[in-house]
Each structure stands twice: as structure tokens, then as C-alpha cells.
């Protein structure tokens, strides 16, 4: 867009043309009481630029940033190395500044990227079709619940207690406006997820069962029996994944019978970014469900000359055509984050992803074994990938996390933070270990934790 400077004469000419004397005349409709007639009350005068810089720097120095300390935080957002080439690719002007670049005549690059993204997500999830992404994992989770209602024509969703509480809250919030009934729960502290309990909550009115894999406590279990139990009652199984790197090592949810697989794609290529923007992944196992999917879909086709090309497809499901009957009120995607994800995935390749997953798990095992040697510390999980639950018997994990931060270690996410006020979960600490954690970092965490626990006994 061109920059058009204005002179005072330009302004006077324009005001004259519309019959106004001053700019203030344009605001006569605003009641006098709502108009500002001087400086804002109680607002101090502005500071000089250098003073502001010094002030902001002092504030910033109070942060303990992810890269500045041994870092073991996860619980839905994971710190992974993002290759520099990812940033280089996504900063190309064609990708970075284009808004809704979906006309096939001029946007083959973007459309091909989205098609490849969908292919990668579908393969990762063990599904037939993935969409071009949604806003983030939690909204993708809600979209899956809403889709299950459309498919089954039922309104009750059963959420596993070990589903990320923020995801459960997003589902609850949206359900207020659709009349869906959400049966949620809290995780029980146990080495394995309670699938018998979950299955017992499925009834003939149930549209879907939502289970996280690996779950909020980092536990991994075969979800195929949940799929069978849901299908027996005519319900769908929705699997939620918050750490896509795990699927470089684990069997995919689609292969185990999940009907809709959704999740957060942030771990690959996107970075932590203060919590957003993130990347919602959404896929269905059975192609017959494609019409009920939310979001944008890119398809492969041939042009008039028989050459391979890419276009958006099945757009009649979407809001700009189908209005209030659309499959979702979201008509867009996280295009740039999807590009980052796809660039990172492409650089890794299947072999690279498997190696990355193996390295994550190796370091997580190292950390779990080391932490388990501390008196009063035990590892809850029977199985985990790169995140596990540490029980600090007799200690409040939230306070320990704070004390560790004071000692320069970002030691994990306490369950008390995720479930405020729930006493049964107060002693549990989630520890995530990725390829960015070194054996030295792990040793620092263990040493500091041990010394803290001894001191506070």
C-alpha cells in the first residue's frame, strides 16, 4: 500500500468539501461527557525514550527466559530446537505478508505447502485426511467435539480426566453456546490411565469420548480398547495429542482406531512464543467423515493443460458460503505456523523425526532415573515419552517450582498450577525433557531439587 502524506492545505480542502470547519466537527455525535477535553486524569507525563528503554530493560531482566536456564517445562507447550532455515523460509515476503492467498491462479506455492502440510499431519496421526490447520490444539479439540455431534446427532461428550485442563475448559466454554453436555473429570494419580472408569461413563447418548495421548501426566496407553468401547455405543473416539514429536516413536492414534485426531503442532517449527500463535492440527481417519470436518482443505488437481496443481476444495462446508450452517465458525487457518511446521518436518524427514523422538526419550529416561534417586522422589508413570510425573511426597510442588526458579532452574509445571485448589494433585510435578536439555541441565535440576527437599523437610 502506498504512503500518502497530507499537508495542512489537503486537510483544509477535504474539510471544506464535506462542509466541516475543523476535525472536531466530525465528532459532534459523540456526547460531550464522553469526549476528552484535556490530559487523562492521573496519567503521568510521558518519559523520554531512553528512560523508557532503561525501564523496560529492568523489567525484562526480571524474566527467567527459556533459553537462559535449565528448562523442563511442558504440559502442552514444548521447547524444541527450531532450525534457522525454518525462520528463513517463513520470512519470505510471499509467505509472510500475503493475506488469504488462496486464488489458485497466483498462489500455487502456498497451496502446495498446505497440501504437503496436510499430508504430513495425516501420516503423523494415522488418518486419511487432515485440514489446513486451526488456531491451536484446544480449539481443534472443541471442533472435534462439535464434529462428533454432527456425525452422531448426539450432544453428550465424555472427556477423560487426563485431558489437558485448558482443553477441557475451552470445550466447556464453547458447549455453553451449543447446548452440548460435557462430562469432564480430573486425573487420578496412578501409574496408568483409568480406562475402565472412562469406558463406564460412555452411554447411548454419548457422541464422543475425548482422550489425550500421551496424557496430561505423560502416560501412554493403548487406546484401541477405548475406540472399541466407544464404537460399540455408536460414539466416536477423539484422540488429542499435544506433543507431535511423540508420534515419531509411538503408534499413531488413527492406527489404534481413533476417529478424529487433533492436537497442538507448536512443538515442530513454531517455538514457545509466549504461548501463541500456535497451530491446531485436525484429521479424520475415515474419508466418509470429510464433509463434516471443520476448516480449510487444500486438494490436488489437474489444470486445463493436464498439469498438476492445487486448489482449496469442499469450500461449501465453510462459513463464507454456508453461513450459520457451516461446519465451523472458523473460516481461516494458522497459515504461517503451518508453514513453519511443514518446513521443520520436511527438514527432519521421517528418519529425522524418529531420531529426534528417540533422543527426546533417551534424555527423558536419563532424567527420570536421576530424579528417582533423590530420597522422597518417585516417578509416577509406568510409561512415558518425553514428559513424566514426579511425585514429591510431602511437598507442595508449586512452591518447589518457585524455589527452583529462584535458584535459576525452570524445573517443571506443577499440577497445582493446572488444577488450583485440588489437594490430591498438589504434590505432583510434570517434568518435560527435550533434545534442548543437556545431561548437565538434568544434573543441575536433580542437585537443586535434592538440596531444596532436604532444606524444606
Amino acid at each position, binding site marked *: 500500500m502506498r504512503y500518502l502524506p497530507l499537508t495542512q492545505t489537503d486537510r483544509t480542502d477535504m474539510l471544506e468539501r464535506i462542509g466541516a470547519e475543523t476535525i472536531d466537527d466530525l465528532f459532534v455525535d459523540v456526547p460531550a461527557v464522553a469526549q476528552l477535553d484535556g490530559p487523562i486524569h492521573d496519567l503521568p507525563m510521558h518519559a523520554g525514550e531512553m528512560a523508557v528503554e532503561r525501564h523496560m530493560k529492568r523489567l525484562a531482566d526480571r524474566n527467567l527466559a527459556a533459553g537462559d536456564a535449565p528448562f523442563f517445562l511442558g504440559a502442552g507447550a514444548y521447547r524444541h530446537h527450531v532450525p534457522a532455515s525454518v525462520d528463513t523460509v517463513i520470512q519470505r515476503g510471499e509467505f509472510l505478508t500475503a493475506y488469504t492467498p488462496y486464488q489458485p491462479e497466483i498462489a500455487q506455492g502456498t497451496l502446495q505447502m498446505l497440501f504437503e502440510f496436510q499430508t504430513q499431519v495425516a501420516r503423523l496421526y494415522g488418518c486419511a485426511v487432515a485440514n489446513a490447520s486451526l488456531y491451536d490444539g484446544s480449539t481443534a479439540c472443541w471442533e472435534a467435539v462439535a464434529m462428533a455431534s454432527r456425525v452422531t*446427532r448426539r450432544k453428550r461428550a465424555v472427556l477423560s480426566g487426563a485431558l489437558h485442563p485448558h482443553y477441557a475448559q475451552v470445550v466447556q466454554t464453547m458447549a455453553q453456546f451449543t447446548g452440548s453436555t460435557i462430562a469432564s473429570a480430573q486425573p487420578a494419580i496412578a501409574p496408568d490411565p483409568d480406562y475402565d472408569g472412562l469406558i463406564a461413563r460412555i452411554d447411548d447418548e454419548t457422541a464422543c469420548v475425548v482422550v489425550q495421548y500421551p496424557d496430561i501426566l505423560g502416560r501412554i496407553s493403548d487406546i484401541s480398547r477405548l475406540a472399541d468401547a466407544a464404537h460399540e455405543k455408536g460414539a466416536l473416539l477423539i484422540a488429542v495429542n499435544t506433543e507431535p514429536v511423540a508420534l515419531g516413536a509411538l503408534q499413531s492414534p488413527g492406527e489404534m482406531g481413533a476417529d478424529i485426531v487433533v492436537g497442538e503442532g507448536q512443538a515442530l517449527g513454531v517455538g514457545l512464543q509466549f504461548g501463541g500463535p500456535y497451530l491446531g492440527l485436525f484429521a479424520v481417519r475415515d474419508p466418509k467423515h470429510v*464433509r463434516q470436518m471443520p476448516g480449510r482443505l487444500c486438494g490436488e488437481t489437474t489444470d486445463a493443460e493436464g498439469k498438476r496443481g492445487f486448489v482449496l476444495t469442499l469450500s*461449501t462446508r465453510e462459513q463464507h*458460503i*454456508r453461513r450459520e*450452517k457451516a461446519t465451523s465458525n472458523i473460516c481461516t487457518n494458522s497459515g504461517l505456523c503451518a508453514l513453519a511446521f511443514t518446513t521443520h518436518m520436511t527438514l527432519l524427514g521421517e528418519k529425522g523425526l524418529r531420531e529426534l523422538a528417540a533422543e527426546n526419550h533417551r534424555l527423558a529416561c536419563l532424567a527420570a532415573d536421576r530424579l528417582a534417586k533423590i530420597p522422597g522422589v518417585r516417578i509416577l508413570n509406568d510409561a512415558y515419552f518425553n514428559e513424566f510425573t514426579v511425585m514429591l511426597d510431602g511437598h507442595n510442588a508449586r512452591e518447589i517450582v518457585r524455589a527452583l526458579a529462584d535458584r535459576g532452574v525452570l524445573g517443571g509445571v506443577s499440577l497445582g498450577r493446572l488444577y488450583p485448589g485440588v489437594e490430591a494433585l498438589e504434590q505432583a510435578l510434570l517434568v518435560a525433557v527435550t533434545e534442548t536439555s543437556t545431561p548437565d541441565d538434568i544434573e543441575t535440576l536433580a542437585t537443586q531439587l535434592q538440596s531444596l527437599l532436604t532444606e524444606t523437610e
Partner: protein
Amino acid sequence: MPRYFTEEHEWIDVEGDSATVGITDFAQEQLGDIVFVELPQVGSQVAKGKDAAVVESVKAASDVYAPITGEVTEINGALEDDPALVNSSPEDEGWFFRVTVADKDELEGLMNETAYKDFAQSA
């Protein structure tokens, strides 16, 4: 067997206490290539003037309204695999659904073929 037409471009054939519903040749021509038809569930209730089905073409998605109140007894499963039947045979093989006729008085005010042709031409 009398055939009636609505201002929303549906046709309805009434036979005893059962009626068959579809969209008119004029409607399919306006919509263009039909790519998907969403039909009501067998056993569900439809109400006169309320939406009962959705028809999607390459350019738009449109509601199909029930010309009469009743219970859906049968749907045209062939449209699931071959929605283009609505283009090739809109007023025969491309029918949408069958309903029970609860109240024959509801047919009053619908158009016959001649009246509908005039209506469509002036549209």
C-alpha cells in the same frame, strides 16, 4: 398422481398419504453442478416451510424446504454416491425424500405445473 410446486423451487408428488419431494429442473439449472446432497434422517419429522435438506453445488450451498409436514419414510440413497443425478434427472431419479402426508390442506396454495412455469419464467 398430482404434482405440486413451491415458490422455493421444490416439487412434490402426492400419492395417497405419502409424498415424494425433490428440486425442480429450473432450480438445478440455477445451482449448477451439484456435488453433495445432505438428506434428512429416516424417521425424523419435517415441517412445512422449514429446512429439510441441503444441496451443495460448486458455487453455493442451499436449503431445501419441506413443502409439507410429515415424517420422513425414505431417502434417495443413490444421491450419496451420485449427487449429479439431481442435475441429470431432477424431477425423477434425483428425488430427495419421501414423507407421510399429515395434513392434505397444506397442499393448498402450492402451484401446479403451468403456474410454476410462469412463476419460474418471471423469476
